[in-house]
């Protein structure tokens, strides 16, 4: 059965800290991995990764995929209170439009 596992489940840091969120996947004929940020309601799209070793970056957020290890990390540098959210990882296999989601990592950033 396809699955996505995220760690840690929860993380509490102070502003300015750097955090690394982990995502591992077991998906038949893996095609892509996506990261979302969910603050209060709708998850908002952050990154989609399809190739190993190529970092995607947006401001203080960056992510990279390791197909050999079947995993991905999401880094957030110089965290701010506005980064507090649940970060969701999802993976998709070939020949399917369905995303398999992990349970998410709840990040809390305190001033």
């Amino acid at each position, binding site marked *: 059965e396809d699955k996505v596992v995220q760690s840690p489940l929860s993380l509490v840091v102070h502003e300015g800290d750097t955090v690394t969120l982990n995502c591992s996947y077991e998906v038949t004929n893996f095609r892509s991995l996506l990261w979302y940020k969910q603050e209060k309601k*709708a998850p908002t799209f952050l990154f989609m990764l399809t190739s190993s070793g190529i970092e995607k970056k947006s401001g203080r957020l960056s992510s990279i995929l390791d197909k050999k290890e079947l995993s991905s990390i999401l880094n957030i540098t110089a965290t701010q209170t506005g980064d507090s959210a649940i970060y969701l990882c999802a993976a998709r296999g070939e020949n399917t*439009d*369905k995303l398999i*989601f992990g349970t998410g990592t709840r990040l809390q950033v305190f001033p």
Partner: protein
Amino acid sequence: SQTIHQWPATLVQPVGSPLSLECTVEGTSNPNLYWYRQAAGRGLQLLFYSVGIGQISSEVPQNLSASRPQDRQFILSSKKLLLSDSGFYLCAWSHRRGTGNTIYFGEGSWLTVV
């Protein structure tokens, strides 16, 4: 640009009552449409997805059903709600396979069954 609307945002319903959550997408044609449920500690669980009018795939056995009466309209229904149906329901859309496969979510609907 594409937008997705979902309503109602919040709903409190008694056990045994019917349910109808509606979702519409604007600014695109022939989207894939999805209904997810999010329960605490369980991430997002895919309930239904649709690749076209009248085409519905159910992912998990449950008390709910979905329909797609028009290309950009997706409806989640139940004839008789159970307490266990409480949760946060998210509608989502994506382009058809091969044209970009990011999934975009609506604002969600909080359902409390009492």
